[in-house]
């Protein structure tokens, strides 16, 4: 009876076609690179030190910028591991100058020489000019500072907006996350800052930002299970859920509500009003 031989052979053949071996192993030891995955934006140099500025893209753009930096000793070509740094971005306008929201600078987690912070440029000139960056830092008890011009490019979408609320206060609102949007429920994070004066943009606490994402290219449809953005004191941002049902161009329609739920800016999206006056854009 040949059958009992044939059947097992058939099934074994099937099993083997489903298997494959892939044992390639990379035996080269990992090189520890403190600026892995980052691209240099520019060097800012004074007599003693070179300050290297990095970001993922290698450019400053309008909106939220996560910036990494490290300070090199020009004589020894080594990087300092114990410094205190602060910064001040300033834009020179024809008649006045102003700053923008920015964070303190702290040691990057898991790094010895790299420090990081963020800057939210709310505007720029069309050629990228206008901004300068001052760095004040202390090494072994000695204070240093350096200032240089920087180039801030206009980001292709509206990822930051500066507006006047009904309370006659000027606000800056910037998209922090998602940086890499997915077809999923994304954690959306925005920074909300009040323009106290030309140089001071403190974080606004305890407000609410409603969210209604829409796709103008596809009948202005929305998505389900979005949540309003609420203040998180842990990192001083507003967070909520942003559902993106497909890739493409999304308009994130927002309304800013103060602590008493008074609308400071923005309108509800309806058939007649396809877009709120307060919005951010996202494309992926």
């Amino acid at each position: 009876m040949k059958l009992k031989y044939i059947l097992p052979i058939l099934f074994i053949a099937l099993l083997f076609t489903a298997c494959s071996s892939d044992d390639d192993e990379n035996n080269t030891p990992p090189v520890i690179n403190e600026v892995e995955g980052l691209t240099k934006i520019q060097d800012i140099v004074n007599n003693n030190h070179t300050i290297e500025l990095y970001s993922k893209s290698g450019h400053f753009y309008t909106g939220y910028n996560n910036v990494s930096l490290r300070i090199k000793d020009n004589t020894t070509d080594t990087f300092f591991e114990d410094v205190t740094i602060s910064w001040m971005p300033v834009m020179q306008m024809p008649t006045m100058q102003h700053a923008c929201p920015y964070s303190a600078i702290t040691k990057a987690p898991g790094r010895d020489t790299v420090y990081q912070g963020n800057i939210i440029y709310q505007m720029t000139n069309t050629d990228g000019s206008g901004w300068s960056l001052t760095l004040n830092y202390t090494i072994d008890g000695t204070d240093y500072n350096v200032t240089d011009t920087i180039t801030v490019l206009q980001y292709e979408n509206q990822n930051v907006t500066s507006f006047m609320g009904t309370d006659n206060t000027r606000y800056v609102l910037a998209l922090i996350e998602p940086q890499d949007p997915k077809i999923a429920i994304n954690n959306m994070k925005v920074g909300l800052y009040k323009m106290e004066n030309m140089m001071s943009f403190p974080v606004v606490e305890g407000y609410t930002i409603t969210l209604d994402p829409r796709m103008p290219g596809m009948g202005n449809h929305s998505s389900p299970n979005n949540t309003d953005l609420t203040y998180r004191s842990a990192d001083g941002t507003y967070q909520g859920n942003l559902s993106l049902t497909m890739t493409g161009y999304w308009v994130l329609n927002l309304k800013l509500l103060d602590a008493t739920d008074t609308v400071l800016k923005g309108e509800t999206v309806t058939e007649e009003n396809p877009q709120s006056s307060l919005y951010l854009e996202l494309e992926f």
Partner: protein
Amino acid sequence: MKKYMIFGLGFLFSALTFAQELEATVEKDTTQLDEVILIGQRKLSNYRQEKTLSSIDEYLEKSNKVTMIKRGNYAWEPSLNNMDSQRLVVTIDGMQIFGACTDKMDPITSYVDVSNLEQVSIDSGQEGTENGHCVGGGINLQMPQSKFNGSGLKSSVDLGYETNGNYKIAGLELEYVGNKFYVNADGIFRKSDNYDAGGNKEVLYSQFQKYNVSLQGGYKLAENHVLDANVIYDKATDVGYPALPMDVSLAEALITSLTHTYKNDSTTIKSWESKLYYNTITHIMDDSKRPDVPIRMDMPGWSDTYGFYTKATLKENKHNILLNLNGFYNRSLAEMTMYPNDPNQPAMFMYTWPDIRTLYTGIYAKDAFALSQDKTVSASARVGYHQNTVAEEVGLESLQIFYPDMDDSKSRFLMSLSADYKVKKDSYDATFGLGYGERAPSVSEGYGFFLFNSFDNFDYIGDPNLNNEKALEANLAANYYANQLKIGFETSYFYLTDYIIGEVDPSLSAMTIGANGVKVYQALSHASIFDFYVNATYNISEAFSLNGTLGYNYGKGSNDENLPFIKPFSYLAEINYTRNFFNAALQLDGNGNQTNYSSYYGENETAAFAILNLNLGNVFYIKSNKMVLKYGVENILDTNYSTYSDWNNIPRQGRNFYMNVSFVIN
């Protein structure tokens, strides 16, 4: 007549499979729960199957129980007991194969042609679970059996032309049958332009073009052992779907199998058949021929299935036992890319079927016990394990927008049971059956992501947490024979629980431009479907016979709404004239007014209609060669009509003259 049909094909069947031995192999116009449609190519049958070059769809449509849902002139979707694809198990020779279109534009019946098949067996309800779980029934498209009768070389040529739509068909078949091996190669080509509805109204985007080639061969390993291999390649291009907003630029299938068969009449195990198979489908929707669409889009889909079955038939005393162990692994992936009218915006992309992997293994057993010469009681059961996994991370995350807690896989246990009692006397026969069955939700029902349904104009979202749909069924059929009269009826009642259907979720925003909203697949707590057919045949003389069928169907959900796609009152009457070398038939086919239409589920009332068809056939013998000529007129009165199963009420063909000619060269 039955004998004529069966014996006429007898030389093709070296043996019938056990399943067919168990069931009464009945021919298509009788009222029985199990129907076998013989793909009678190049035969002079006097019943409703007129054209030798009919598509599989047209063959199926002639069955009482099957209705074809039409979205165009090609790739009709079979519906059995008023239940369509997802409630049926449709297989090709026991092989699982799943369409790759999210909008059901490619029922698997569209991937085979008459030249590939020998017969179609249609089993109602739980009778149809030999190859898989279903609630509505099973349709198995059977390929020819292997043969080693040493008949040598045979070739045949088929040509067909139909005036309506300038429809051209050509087929070629070559066959060599030795004593140890055989090989059969065939190809068929079909091309049709837009057809005209009644009153010469052209139906735009109703064209199609396809070809199908197949190669089958077998080798006799030993006296009782045969190894067969079969490859079918089917490719349709430029297929219009007048009822839908998109057409199809490519529907391509490769269907392969390797079968080992053991047969022995002298042992308890009568036969043992094992098959390994693989099939792959690519389906590409296309709107480039439509001048005016709100947005351009691409919607490709893919479906690959690997599977096996091994089945044995045993006969011991009065027991006839059939065992079937089977399993398959399917991958279904479909995506959609939309191109905004503003060229500055990026393309919009989503997975509409997020790479769903389905793994199924199950076992089926059936025992027919002969109580006496004329009474048989039989029972069958299928149990299986069914698992869906979302393989694409992006797809899982996109579904989690709707179901944040969903896991990437879901397992189900499925069960099916049936029992029936048959009596067969000279003057009457009767069958009474009961069944219980379960089915898992289809890929679309479980995992569909914004699938636009142009019938009710809603986007559909699947729900991976749906319960299995369950059906309790009872059926009864009887025939009475008196002299030249045969009268019979059959009826089935299905009580379905957790009946899966889309319900509007007003909180969701439609994705498709112009859609009315979004429906989410949900379960009605229960639904009832009932059908009743009565059929009578009267042989006036040797040559003349009359045949008539009436049908009534009913379907309602627990929300007190009519179910969609329930056939209205239907009737068919025909008069046949049959001689050895000539036949003729005149038919009246009609439906009553669709009064119980389902406005809730997007249907509108379809008006009553009736059409007249005339079919003629001749057969000529020239030495050992044969020529079969079939010709006639369909819809003689050029009625402009559509039926309840025509998607968006697209009208059916107007008057059509056709001629098919087949040459068989021995």
